[in-house]
């Protein structure tokens, strides 16, 4: 779509065409275009809540492989992330808690040595993502000091307390679930389905969103927009209803 506006140029009225921002794509193939083998994929959600299952299915269909997936959990049952793992498309998973109820596929791959695991404390993972989105290459945190997760990390003391240097965790792609979106990519989220989504949306080169509701530009209260559209590249409308399991 294009919008015509009138502009003044050298005293004469001329018509100029300006491309309208429209991040809403019409197909899953369009949403997934360009995701490359070896990509680092940031996957929103905590358990099943706020996890963009339709985008995961789209990624499975799209075919990219040798992926690194950053996600709080490592998939449940045999669908969604678990299916992506099962298909052998994930080289490495970065997560805080792979031991969710029924993580069968991950456990099988892990025991067989077929997947690399980087365990990151949940808050350190969230902050590494936030740092990536905010242009901060690394930060110090007291989390994990003196534990085996501190191995190989620089340690410094501030005010008599020990801290570890943790590096930002940027993604090539972020897969996000939102509640509402407009064509600029402004987003809102539902209850505890925010979780990692807003912070991952800031941390990737390509942020792809599935949303329950698409609304007109201007319909979202500017004070309620949680992710401003500047962070978002593509939006797919997936009105699936409610997550059936937590």
């Amino acid at each position: 779509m294009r919008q015509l506006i009138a502009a003044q140029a050298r005293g004469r009225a001329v018509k100029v065409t300006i491309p309208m921002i429209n991040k809403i794509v019409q197909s899953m193939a369009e949403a997934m275009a360009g995701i490359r083998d070896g990509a680092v994929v940031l996957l929103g959600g905590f358990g099943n809540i706020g996890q963009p299952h339709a985008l995961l299915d789209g990624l499975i269909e799209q075919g990219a492989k040798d992926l690194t997936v950053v996600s709080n959990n490592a998939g449940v049952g045999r669908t969604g992330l678990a299916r992506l793992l099962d298909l052998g498309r994930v080289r490495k998973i970065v997560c805080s808690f792979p031991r969710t109820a029924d993580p069968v596929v991950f456990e099988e791959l892990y025991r067989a040595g077929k997947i690399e695991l980087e365990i990151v404390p949940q808050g350190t993972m969230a902050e590494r993502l936030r740092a990536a989105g905010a242009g901060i290459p690394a930060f110090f945190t007291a989390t994990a000091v003196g534990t085996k997760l501190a191995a190989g990390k620089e340690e410094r003391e501030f005010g008599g307390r020990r801290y570890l240097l943790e590096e930002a965790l940027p993604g090539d792609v972020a897969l996000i679930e939102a509640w509402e979106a407009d064509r600029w990519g402004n987003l809102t989220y539902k209850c505890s389905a925010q979780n990692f989504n807003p912070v991952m949306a800031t941390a990737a080169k390509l942020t792809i969103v599935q949303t329950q509701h698409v609304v007109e530009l201007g319909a979202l209260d500017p004070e309620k927009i949680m992710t401003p559209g500047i962070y978002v590249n593509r939006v797919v409308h997936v009105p699936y209803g409610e997550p059936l399991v937590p």
Partner: protein
Amino acid sequence: MNFFAACKPMTRNEMAERLARDIPEGWYVNLGIGAPLKVADYVPVEREVIFHSENGVLGMGPAPQPDQVNRWLINAGKQYVTLRTGGSYMHHADSFALIRGGHLDLCVLGAFQVAENGDIANWSTSDNDTAPAVGGAMDLAAGARQLWVIMDHQTKSGESRLVRRCTYPLTAIGAVKRVYTNLAVLDVTEDGFAVRDMVPGLTLDALQKVTDAPVRMAKVNAGAAS
């Protein structure tokens, strides 16, 4: 075991109730998944203790009635919960900034072992475990102003969980301030474990027999939490 003939160890629910009594009104509290979550059952909603769940819920209320489940609202244990009046949501980076920034008055975690220097081991029982899973435990243990642990005094095979030094992988160093077991309530002090409270019929000598680390009576038995 003769030892238990003289006294009756607390049940999980009694331990949770005992701990809940020590939480002052007005505190912001994170309860770890598992046994610590039971503590909330013993804080009546009219007492304004605000529960935080690290997946981005502040002001978490009890489980919903089966016909009133909000499928978008879960706690860190991935169970459906409610939001009490005045509650709020936040994203993960803010939720852990709140933890790391020292804004929580208290975190309660379960543990495998607590050492007399306050070290805690609660996330992995061995280095050759199945896939390790740490979740938010390290962030909570390092970030909350106070860390209390609720756990059985001994393992099922009778080994003390209160130790001189943890043998399991650590969650945090020097973090634990108090331990609630099925036998006693103990403060972690600069001089090791100090007993605040024991189940009726238990003596310090008897408690020492089932505790790897040295225990002594607390100098002052202050009533509420310090």
